[in-house]
């Protein structure tokens, strides 16, 4: 069964920060092709701030940790990904108030709430070449019966769903955000938001997979 404790949440957030920093230049390059060339820089600044802010709420419930994450992203990112990822973490956090440990149903609810937050804020749907294309297949997968599946299988399937979704953005024409101004010229490039979301899900998978 898949579960996720409070300490693991903190480790996931730190792992996201490390991976985003490693991919800072790559994300910015993706964004310079179809956006305003700041996604890597913005996300790196955002998750640095998350790591700092979260340190003071480590002993609080998972809901508070995720809400703190959201607030840190909102006030530090500077681009569209601030309100988008910020809302995602705030909404997920609201669902997890008082929780010290997450079970399959909580994980399902949290990812679902995160997706709803992003859709509400960005008004995007699958196929628009956005974060939603990575996150939505993961949420769909989590709707299946997880209770009897081994953790390794769930994590592997989550990463696969996210990766496939992320890759699907390459041939899409952007319908949201700055990239949509490029119309046909946005085709042939991965969406930077879809990629940063994939990096985040990979960090989630790797930390949870780490503990036998």
């Amino acid at each position, binding site marked *: 069964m898949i579960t996720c404790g409070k300490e693991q949440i903190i480790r996931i957030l730190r792992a996201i920060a490390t991976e985003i920093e490693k991919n800072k230049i790559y994300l910015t390059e993706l964004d310079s092709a179809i956006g*305003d060339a700041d996604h890597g820089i913005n996300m790196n600044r955002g998750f640095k701030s998350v790591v700092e802010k979260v340190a003071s709420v480590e002993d609080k419930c998972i809901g508070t940790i995720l809400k703190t994450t959201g607030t840190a992203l*909102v006030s530090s990112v500077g681009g*569209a990904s*601030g*309100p*988008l990822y910020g*809302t995602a973490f705030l909404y997920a956090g609201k669902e997890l108030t008082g929780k010290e440990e997450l079970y399959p149903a909580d994980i399902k609810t949290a990812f679902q709430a995160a997706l709803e937050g992003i859709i509400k*804020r960005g008004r995007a749907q699958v196929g628009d070449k956005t974060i939603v294309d990575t996150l939505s297949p993961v949420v769909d997968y989590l709707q299946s019966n997880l209770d009897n599946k081994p953790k390794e299988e769930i994590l592997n399937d989550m990463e696969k769903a996210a990766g496939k979704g992320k890759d699907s953005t390459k041939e899409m024409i952007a319908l949201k955000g700055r990239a949509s101004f490029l119309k046909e010229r946005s085709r042939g490039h991965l969406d930077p938001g879809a990629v940063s979301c994939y990096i985040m899900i990979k960090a989630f998978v790797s930390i949870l997979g780490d503990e036998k």
Partner: protein
Amino acid sequence: MVSIVIVSHSSKAAEGIKEIALQMAEDPELKIFSCGGSKGGGIGTDPDEISKALENAYSKDGTVVMADLGSAVMSVEMIIENMPGGKGHRIRIADAPIVEGAVLAAVEASGGGDLKKVLASAEAARDMRKIEGG
């Protein structure tokens, strides 16, 4: 009187739009606040600055926000949602071109229009033609 907040990705654009709108409205009572640019002064939006502008602009008659690109709209929406004490209920984002909308909103607000009217005036900018028959 309804107040107006201009949110742009550029502080110069926001300040300039405010200047144009104030000049058209010619009303010393009219309150327009501008904010733009990221924290470092680059192109972007700074939610903390937007938050302050919305606080400063607070009027019991309401506030109309004019925003430029998508993330400016998203930042404003997010701040309104999280404002304490239901203050966000009297703030509306106009779905309109930012310059024309700001001018129309300023004229309507200075004429004493209520929140609904100021918002409708700003949104009428969507249908403004610039070249006859164009």
